[in-house]
């Protein structure tokens, strides 16, 4: 009781004190200024420069002349590789997102069960997510190798193949090989995300459903899934954006091959900008990619918007 009285009185004091002192008005600005400056110099400025550069022919040495929207016209009408890359990246996203989602959801259901030691399994499934994507790509280059790799050795041991599959150089197998490696690397992350959403649902909701005679699957269908919409939306946006920005795995595992089939959009931007040194053109592709991603995120957020409050 005495404590409550103290709290209200000191609150009043603190507020009026903050309003009265002029110097205090800028204390907050002082604390936040370094972060603001970093964001302006290393994020907002380059973002503006990307738009500016995309309207120029711009070489690595810095010579540049204004050419209006010529880069965008070239990009949309002449650059067949850009369209190939966009289509490839879209296909990759459409394949890997459901794969990650379904596996992550099943794993989340599994590690949400009240079993002893389940935390250990949760940690193990998540472990690959803390490894770098570049490192895991290299790891899979080795595992998938036709001579020294373990995957081919195991398949042969099980009698599933007669001769080793050259996973990363065979147009029929390259996509599945990369998808397996990326699912291994990232599915634990989505699993934890979904698990957090599952555990945020109040236990009373399940209990009252159980009292009404709902079994496990009915509780899943009518309570868990609808209430996890926000979590699904978040995980979906993260997964789609991550896939559209894929670079490391293609650069390291396939170098864009076989026959330039696995050049993702970011890879093509990298090549145009830092192999051909056509920075303005690369900038215009970056802007197109940016617009695509923002539109996709907005659509997904809208589709999975959550009107319920609980």
């Amino acid at each position: 009781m005495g404590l409550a009285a103290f709290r209200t009185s000191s609150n009043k004091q603190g507020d009026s004190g903050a309003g009265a002192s002029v110097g205090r008005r800028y204390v907050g600005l002082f604390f936040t200024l370094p972060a603001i400056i970093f964001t302006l110099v290393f994020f907002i400025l380059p973002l503006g420069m990307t738009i500016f550069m995309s309207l120029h022919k711009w070489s690595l040495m810095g010579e540049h002349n204004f050419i209006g929207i010529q880069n965008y016209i070239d990009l949309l009408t002449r650059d067949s590789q850009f369209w190939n890359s966009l289509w490839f990246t879209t296909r990759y996203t459409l394949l890997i997102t459901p794969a990650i989602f379904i596996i992550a959801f099943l794993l989340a259901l599994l590690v949400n069960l009240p079993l002893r030691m389940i935390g250990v399994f949760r940690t193990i499934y998540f472990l690959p997510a803390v490894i770098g994507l570049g490192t895991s790509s290299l790891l899979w280059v080795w595992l998938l190798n036709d001579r020294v790799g373990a995957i081919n050795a195991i398949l042969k041991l099980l009698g599933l193949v007669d001769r080793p599959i050259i996973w990363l150089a065979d147009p029929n197998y390259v996509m599945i090989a990369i998808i397996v490696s990326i699912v291994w690397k990232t599915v634990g992350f989505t699993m934890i995300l979904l698990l957090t959403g599952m555990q945020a649902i109040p236990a009373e909701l399940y209990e009252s459903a159980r009292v009404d005679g709902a079994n496990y699957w009915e509780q899943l269908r009518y309570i868990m899934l609808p209430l996890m919409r926000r979590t699904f939306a978040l995980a979906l946006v993260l997964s789609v954006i991550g896939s559209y920005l894929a670079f490391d795995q293609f650069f390291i595992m396939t170098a864009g091959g076989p026959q330039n089939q696995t050049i993702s959009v970011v890879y093509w931007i990298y090549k145009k900008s830092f192999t051909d040194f056509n920075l303005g053109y690369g900038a215009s592709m970056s802007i197109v990619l940016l617009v695509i991603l923002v539109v996709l995120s907005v659509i997904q957020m809208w589709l999975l918007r959550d009107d319920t409050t609980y």
Partner: protein
Amino acid sequence: MATAVQSRTAKRPRSALWGRVLLYVVCIFIAILFLFPIVWSAISSVKPPKEASAAPPTFLPSQIDFANYGKLDDYGRGVWSYVGNSVITAIITVIGSTVLSTLAGYGFARFNFPMKNIAFVLILATLMIPFQSILIPLFLILTGLRLQNTLFGLALVYITFQLPFGVFIMRNTFASVPREIEEAALLDGCTPLTMLYRVMFALVRPGIITVGIYAFLNSWNEFLAALIFMTKEANFTLPILLTSVRSGYYGAIDWGALQAGLMVSIVPCVVIFLLLQRYYVGGLTGGAIKG
């Protein structure tokens, strides 16, 4: 409660027991799938070099041999020099991200100042923009600042990429500290800065650790920016160097050395994650679900 559970299991002990056993078998099988690549690489890295490159692969090493790790010294200036580059970059990134995020989090959580909301939205909105789309001008900005090809310049960029997450986490952390503590300290004559240092620091330490872990992992693992900004081999970070071990401009791929290099890259991440798991997952939930 305990009796209720017991009576239920007593009714159908067999099916419940078998269901449990089956679930554990599934759990263990999946665990093997997830652990296999890392464990297999660890085992192979301590094989004698010839066995490490054997085709088809052998299972267990005939003897434990660290020669593959020794061979890492033959790449470029020796792998340890690139590990050093990665460590330096990660240290600058961790210190920079935690200090800037802590200061900004405190400012946003506890003070009112002109344009506060605009500034906060500005920092968080950068989450929407993929950093991949601004790398080209960033390269030019670093060149303009004479920071191209320096670990410091790379770390400055990494710090900026960490800020939206870090500021968000730290603002929430500060906001969850009861105001009474500060008010008491204010009465004792603390200025805002000494307050932050003497009083708040201990209270927000979990948030700082969370921001630090993410800063470390992202800096240690980042690939594309390092590939673009570091054009001189002497300044390569570990992931870039490992790619060149693989890509063969040192000749044929030395699989044993690659496995050892992978371990050098993986082990710090795994150790830090296992030690500080609580803070890592806390960051995931605090940063993702609430947002």
